[in-house]
Every structure is written in structure tokens, then in C-alpha cells.
């Protein structure tokens, strides 16, 4: 009976998240469109509201092309690795008090593990396609993940030190004692580092080098088509949501808001996640793209020292209070 309930919960979560993914793509296109003084999708449904559904159906029924020289098992597995790890990381996210599938003590570590595992999918995709552009995209992705996992982890160490826990629910609870009951202000450097690393982790502009369209055609995605392409796509957007959720949980006080919303506890949580997603899209509409070596430089020369400084300052703060 309990298993059934958990399965139902999983199903509900997946359905909600996947629907969100679909409509994130829609809002991305709409928002970027309007920022660029055009309209975005307009034809399918009222103001293009059914466009993501149409896209989903289309990619589901498209021919799944596998390059002749590709490493077939890996080529087929790569998008699944990406998607599954991203979906798995949803399990530990607390949407509200008690609204969490697996309330484990190493929640944050689990999230890190899953997000770095997802990049293996990208690397394998780049390698298995047996194409030069995908290979370069895969290599870039590898370098990017290695350099940005570290500042990302380090930036959250401050949060762990303040809250004294890796459990996401407890991190949210611990923030109640902070200014405005969020960790944003005491951890402002940490948040800055986390935010940049988050953009890089999710391969978003200005760090979208692995799929830099004007350089590598489509990077690691070049040879993919149909459903497998859509899986990568979904993984990327779920990744954005997971990262936004981590940011919300660790720095913005999770589901806590200025006041409680009855009947729908995760209201504030979802609102904050939407805020992050809007920021993602907004940045994409504004900024150019870094070069590969500049990206490395930023990661190693700026973000890691900043993150270490943040840990040091947090330590001092802990000692003197």
C-alpha cells in the first residue's frame, strides 16, 4: 500500500515537472521573443499556448536517426543517462514542509552526485555520435563540468556551515534565524558564485559552449533527432529547475515566504523557482557567449578563490558568534 502511494507520488511529481518543462520552453520562447521585439510562437492554440504539446508530439513521432558509424549502445544510452539522473535528483527536493519524496540526510550531496552524473550523458553523447562537432562539444562539456562542479560545491559549503546540515528540509528550517529568514545576505558571495556556477552547470548562456550554435553547429546534440533529442532537451530544462530549486532552498529560504498561503504550501517555493527561471531566460536574451579558455579562467581564477574566501568569512562569522 505504501509503495503504491509512493508510486502515485512519483507519478504526480513527474507529470507536474514534465508539464512544467514543456511550458518552460514555451515561456522561454515567448519571453525572449518579446525581449527581442517579436512575438514568439503564435499559431498553435491561442497565442501559441499549445506549441509545447505540438512540439512534444512531433518529436515523439519523428524518425530516430542513428549515424552509421556511431557507437550504438552508448549513443542510445546517453540521453537516458541525462534524463534519468536529472529526474532522480527531483526526489530529494522539498517543495514544502513534508512535500518531499525522500527526506534523506545527504540531500545536497545527492543532488551534486546526480548533476555531475548527468554530464556523463553529454560526454558520452559527444563521443558516441562519432562526429567532430559533437566530440568538441563533449570535450567542452567535460572541461566545463570539472571546473564548475568545484566552485558550485564550495559555494554551498557556507550554507552547510551556517545550517549545520546537508538535509535540504533542515537547511530551510535553519534559515528562519537569518535576516529576512533567508541566507542570501549573509551568504552573498556564496550566492554570486553559486549563481554563475549554476548557469555554467546547466549550459546556459553565457556558458552554453557545449552546444554553441554558431561554433559547433549544435555541439553534442548535432547527431540526435526525434525523441532522443527531446530527452536531452528535457534533461536540460529539468536541470535548470533542479538548480533553481537548490538556489531557492539554500539561499532564498525554500517554501518560507512573507506569509503563509493556505491550501497550497509550495506557493512561495514555486514562485522563487519561477523567478530563477525567468532570470535564466532574461540572461540568455542579453549576454554574449564566453570563449572556452575564458570560461576556464573565470572558473578557476575567480570563482574558486571567491568561494574559498566565502568559506573563510563564514568560518570567522561562526567563530565570533
Amino acid at each position: 500500500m505504501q509503495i503504491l502511494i509512493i508510486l502515485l507520488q512519483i507519478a504526480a511529481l513527474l507529470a507536474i515537472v514534465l508539464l512544467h518543462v514543456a511550458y518552460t520552453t514555451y515561456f522561454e520562447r515567448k519571453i525572449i521573443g518579446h525581449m527581442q521585439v517579436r512575438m514568439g510562437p503564435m499559431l498553435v492554440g491561442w497565442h501559441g499556448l499549445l506549441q509545447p504539446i505540438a512540439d512534444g508530439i512531433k518529436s515523439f513521432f519523428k524518425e530516430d536517426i542513428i549515424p552509421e558509424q556511431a557507437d550504438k549502445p552508448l549513443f542510445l544510452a546517453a540521453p537516458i543517462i541525462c534524463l534519468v539522473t536529472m529526474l532522480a535528483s527531483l526526489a530529494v527536493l522539498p517543495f514544502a514542509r513534508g512535500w518531499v519524496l525522500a527526506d534523506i540526510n545527504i540531500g545536497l550531496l545527492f543532488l551534486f552526485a546526480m548533476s555531475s552524473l548527468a554530464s556523463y550523458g553529454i560526454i558520452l553523447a559527444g563521443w558516441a555520435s562519432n562526429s567532430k562537432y559533437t566530440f568538441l562539444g563533449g570535450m567542452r562539456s567535460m572541461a566545463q563540468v570539472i571546473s564548475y562542479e568545484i566552485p558550485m560545491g564550495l559555494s554551498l559549503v557556507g550554507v552547510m556551515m551556517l545550517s549545520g546540515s546537508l538535509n535540504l528540509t533542515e537547511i530551510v528550517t535553519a534559515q528562519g534565524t537569518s535576516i529576512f529568514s533567508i541566507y542570501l545576505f549573509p551568504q552573498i558571495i556564496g550566492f554570486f558564485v553559486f549563481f554563475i556556477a549554476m548557469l555554467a552547470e546547466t549550459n546556459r548562456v553565457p556558458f552554453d559552449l557545449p552546444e554553441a550554435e554558431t561554433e559547433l553547429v549544435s555541439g553534442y546534440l548535432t547527431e540526435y533527432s526525434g525523441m532522443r533529442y527531446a530527452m536531452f532537451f528535457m534533461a536540460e530544462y529539468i536541470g535548470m529547475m533542479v538548480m533553481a530549486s537548490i538556489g531557492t532552498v539554500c539561499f532564498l529560504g525554500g517554501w518560507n515566504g512573507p506569509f503563509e498561503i493556505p491550501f497550497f504550501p509550495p506557493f512561495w517555493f514555486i514562485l522563487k523557482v519561477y523567478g530563477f527561471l525567468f532570470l535564466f531566460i532574461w540572461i540568455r536574451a542579453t549576454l554574449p557567449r564566453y570563449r572556452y579558455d575564458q570560461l576556464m579562467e573565470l572558473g578557476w581564477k575567480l570563482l574558486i578563490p571567491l568561494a574559498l574566501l566565502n568559506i573563510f568569512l563564514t568560518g570567522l562569522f561562526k567563530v565570533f558568534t
Partner: protein
Amino acid sequence: MTESATINVPVAQGNEDKYKLKMGPQHPATHGVLRVDLELDGETITDCDPKVGYLHRGFEKLAEHRTYAQNLVLTDRLDYMAAMANNVGYCEAVEKLLDIQVSNRARFLRVMVCEMARLASHLLWLATHALDIGAMTVFLYAFRERETLMEIFAELCGSRLTNTYTCLGGVRQDVTHEIMRKLDNFINEFPACIEEYETLIDTNRIWLKRTIGVAPVSAEMGLDLCLTGASLRGSGVDYDIRKHVPYAAYDQIDFEVPLGETGDTYARYRCRMEEMRQSNYILRQCIEKMPPGAIVGEDAPDLVMPTTPRKKVTADTSARQGLIKLIEDRDVYMEGDIYVATEVPKGELGFYFISDCKGKPYRMHIRSPSFIHIGALETLGKGVMVADLIAIIGTLDVVLGECDR
């Protein structure tokens, strides 16, 4: 020459670590059908070999079999971003060869369309250059203004891209009040639009990182590579044909030539942005100084019809046929050769003509700036990264229709 490398990434010895990549001809950033054969060491380019010719249509051969007036349509298809400027360049060259006078109004109209074409071309350059570097919003903002210009072109001559606007001895259509009102609105709004693009990229740290110090070209190196246009002026060489050999009405118009100093991608970018402001200023002068009069020179022979007109000309049929008489009177097609260059948005567009007393050119050679700029890519592309190569292709401002002819 190969010291243009901006990043000193150690290059592995031997060839076993090299990675060969054929970029193009179908690639989002090669502006048409350019193929660049790269040899990569990691992401650093060790050898760069541009391959052109995918769009070769044999214009020079075609021109030998068509009359001077008919060849005008070929020039539309050279640099299709700024067909007007090519039309003007072609007509200026043929008029010099055949010694045809142009009316003053037509000269001003030519300057006007030339500068509009320059704006249109520079806007497209900015759009694609920014898109190549990843700033995709600038792309659409620039196209917004370009669309206005295209519509003015459509109203003026009936076509948006392949204008065929000039004719030997003048232009084919006069402006109307409506067109000038629209142009006036445009030039009043345009400086604010340039501000908009600059807000997005001009001081943006990512943009600066991607452009400053990338592919620096010194003045000597620019001349050695035969670069022209803004690509050369970015290095500080004061070479603008509009000033050096004024054609059309440029001698009656006041403008300045923006010169860069460092000759890197950013300097070239700044030069072109300033050129847009200058073009705007020239357009304003065109509106203010547009002289009255006919759009075709008074003694310009009607060369549109390729065959010699009927000999019997009675005096009272029409005044226009008096012009036909002129062709018989005077030897229009004198023997000789001529090289006339004009400043098109991409650089120096030169036409070399040989006339052998026939209605068709014996030889027409087009000195296209894009062809030479892509040739320079071979030198500039060595030792930079793949992402920089994209920026260099963007900053040289090439169009393959003109390159391959």
C-alpha cells in the same frame, strides 16, 4: 605575420595530435557557403585553409556577353546586403569608361542610396557578428532597423534586395515626398537605435573579452594583406575612396572617416559603429541638399537597348530620340581600359573594364573586397581558437556572393 596569435597555448609537436575539422560550407557561422578546413590542436587552430567557390557563377564571363546596361543586374547579386552600393559602383565605372555625364540630382540620389545600403549592410554585419559571438538580441534589433531601410528601397525602386536602381547616366526612379518623409523619420530615430545596440554589447565585459586583442592587424599587415574598408581603417590607415577619389556627390558632402588604432576586432567594430553614425549624418545632408532637376543626365545616351536604334530618326517624333542621335554622332564606346573603385560597405569594390569599341565589355574584372578578406583569413586564423575564428569571419565582414562572383 603569424604572430597574430592572441593566446599562447602550447602546441603539441608532431602531427598525431592534430584534429582535422571541415567547417562549412553548411555551418551557421560561415555567412553563406564558405568552407574552412581547420587543423586543430585541442581548440587551437594550427592551420586554417579557407575554400571558396561554392557560389561561383562566372559573372566575369557572363559580362562579356551582355551589354553594359544589362550587366547592371549582375552587380545586384554580388554583395546582396548592399546591392545599391554595387549598382552605384558599377555605374560610376562604366560612366567613367564611356565618359557619360550624370545629373547632379542623380549624384545626390546615388549618395543617398549608397549610404542607406551602407547602413543596411553594417546593420546586417552587426547582427550576424553579435549572433556569432552569442548576443542574439542585437540580431533582431538590428534587423528591425534594416527592415525599415528595405521598405524604403522597395518604395523607391520596387525591390528590396536586388535593386537595379541606377542606370548609366543617372538613376531609374526619383524619390517622392513620402519616401523622404520616411527616411527623415528613420534618421531621426536611428542614433537612439545605435545607442541601444551599444548598451547591449559595447561595454559588456564578455563582448570586450571576446573582441579586444582578437586578430590584431597592424597598418603594415593590413596593407600587406590588401585589406580595405573598415577592416583596414580599424588599423588606423586613412584610406576611404569616398575621400580619396570622390565619386557621385561625395565631394559636396561633409563627413569624417572613423579610424581605429589597435586594429583588433573591437577596433573594427567601433569603426563600423562610427561609420553608421557618419552615414546617418550624410543621409541628413542628402535630405537637406537634394538639388532639383532631372534624374538622368541631359546628354546621357539611352544605352538600355542593346541594339543600335533604327537609323531613320525624324526630328519631330519626340525629344527623347534626339538622344539616340547622339550615339551615332559620337563614339561612345572608345577603346581603352579603366579601373574604378568605390567604397562599398565591405571595402573597396573595383571594376576593371576593357572596352574594344563594342557595346559589350571586352573584359570585366571585379575586385571584390570579400574575396581578399577571406584570403586574409588564412593568415589571421592561425593560432587562434575556434570561437575566435568565428569572430574573425564576422569582423572581416565577408559575403560569399561577392567573394565567388
